[in-house]
């Protein structure tokens, strides 16, 4: 018991530190990639290649003046940054990031809390994040901040459904909501990205909307809302919204890696899949997991500096008229297919099973992307011209 307690405390501290440092470097990385995409160099002055830029930014934010608008709701105004910051970090707790680490006192599972309800916990806490944004928008007593908060709540609630629904297919294949079991199932044969390619597409779009990133960054649309829900915030409180946004990105990326890309599984080898656990395995899988998360973070940044923002009605239309029915229909089709293959034909989950589902995904994807591309589903402009 004491062993469990001590390892848990150490893991909490280490993971918290790693995420905070990761988030700090992510802000630097985002600015560098943004600059490269625009043929510039980006921040490269503070430290080697600008790597100390986050430290300089953090120091600046600590020293800046805290402002408290006179007519704001003081309690909620002070609470809001914490309300968006804490859930963003809490969700990372259940994601396994490496194989168990052997120590002289026993094996330590490399996950802060290996909850049996892992995935449900993530959905629950991810939806708590919206409170921070809504509180911030409302308590600021600023019309732009309020609009940002309103948009955010509408958007996050709409896309949460699609996000939850898209992962049901994963849970159907994995047979369990514990993330360690989801990874174990993928290690046995094929990553879920192949049998559930469309679920990954829906999940990615929904995750972008959930984390308020471009092309769904309406809560902080600069051109329309000043800075959105955090207009009235300054110094470290503003910084906390920033950290929360980036931690959400890290969580969403880690989830994509875990649910669809085998988590910490190293592809093309089965060396890392089973005991005996060694430190080398832990380190290798940790590196693999970081690499996968890094790729998704890069995808986030890359998309942000490429795509324009959705209009608000398009956003809602995409969420409710495309993503939700699509996710529901997809679950139906996938559940039927899995039932057919598993219960009727008696196949277990293996490469053949994955291939069968993958071809089904391709069949579904062709008409879907054709319809999406031509604007039959989300009208850019013309379809509602009668108003």
């Amino acid at each position, binding site marked *: 018991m004491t062993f469990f307690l001590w390892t848990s405390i150490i893991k909490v501290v280490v993971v918290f530190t790693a995420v905070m440092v990761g988030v700090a470097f992510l802000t630097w990385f985002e600015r560098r*990639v943004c600059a490269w*995409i625009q*043929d510039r160099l980006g921040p490269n002055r503070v430290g080697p290649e600008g790597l100390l830029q986050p430290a300089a930014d953090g120091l600046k934010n600590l020293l800046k003046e805290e402002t408290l608008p006179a007519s704001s709701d003081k309690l909620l105004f002070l609470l809001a940054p914490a309300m968006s910051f804490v859930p963003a970090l809490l969700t990372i707790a259940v994601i396994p990031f490496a194989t168990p680490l052997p120590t002289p006192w026993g094996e330590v599972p490399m996950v802060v809390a290996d909850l049996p309800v892992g995935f449900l916990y993530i959905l629950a806490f991810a939806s708590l994040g919206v409170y921070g944004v809504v509180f911030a928008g409302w308590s600021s007593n600023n019309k732009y901040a309020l609009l940002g908060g309103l948009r955010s709540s509408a958007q996050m609630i709409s896309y949460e459904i699609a996000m939850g629904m898209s992962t049901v297919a994963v849970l159907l294949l994995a047979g369990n909501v514990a993330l360690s079991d989801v990874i174990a199932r993928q290690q046995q044969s094929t990553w879920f990205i192949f049998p559930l390619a469309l679920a990954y597409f829906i999940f990615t779009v929904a995750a972008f909307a959930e984390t308020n990133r471009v092309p769904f960054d309406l809560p902080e649309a600069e051109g329309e809302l000043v800075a959105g829900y955090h207009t009235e915030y300054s110094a470290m409180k503003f910084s906390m919204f920033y950290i929360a946004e980036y931690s959400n990105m890290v969580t969403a990326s880690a989830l994509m890696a875990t649910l669809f890309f085998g988590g910490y599984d190293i592809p093309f080898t089965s060396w890392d899949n089973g005991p005996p656990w060694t430190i080398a395995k832990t380190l290798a899988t940790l590196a693999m997991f970081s690499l996968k998360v890094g790729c998704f973070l890069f995808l986030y940044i890359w998309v942000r*500096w490429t*795509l324009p923002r959705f209009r608000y009605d398009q956003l809602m239309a995409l969420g409710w008229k495309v993503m939700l029915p699509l996710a529901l229909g997809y679950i139906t089709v996938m559940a039927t297919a899995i039932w057919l293959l598993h219960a009727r034909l008696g196949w277990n989950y293996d490469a053949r099973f994955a291939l069968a589902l993958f071809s089904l995904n391709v069949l579904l994807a062709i008409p879907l*992307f054709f319809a999406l591309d*031509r604007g039959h589903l989300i009208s*850019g402009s013309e379809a509602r*011209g009668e108003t």
Partner: protein
Amino acid sequence: MTIGVKLLKRPRAQTSYVRATLKGMALTLQHLFRPKVTMQYPEEKATDDWAISRRWRGTHRMLTDEQGRAKCVACGLCPQICPANCIKLVPGEDEQGNRYPLIYEIDEFRCVFCGYCQEVCPEEAIHVGVHYENAEYSRDRFVYDLERLCAQTHAVSTLWDPSDPKGE
């Protein structure tokens, strides 16, 4: 739809989301690896394809003769033509009857850098310079006196020549 948005008539066949998105992503990815255009300013002040123009009109410089005296003969043309009225000139005369400036001050904050003083100067004494790094710790340091003007070493501006309009 309750929100009033201005809708453009665009044929559905021409609208594209997926292809356009992929195209854009490919384009930004290419730009990621292209050579960057940033000039690392304090370290490099000119690159192969960019250098400051020879016709740049910056802070002034007074040219001197062989004895190190200012070439200025205190004729008074430059304060006369100066549209910003930033040149203060008090003429003096020595025993041989040569005029020279007792006081010659240019307020660089008032100056609009039109270069008329250089154009009008009969002795080619006062010039605007190819120079732009002028930071100082106090405002009064921006009133350049004669000694300071003579001590400047930067290149002088090549003014626009009507017979050679492109500066070739």
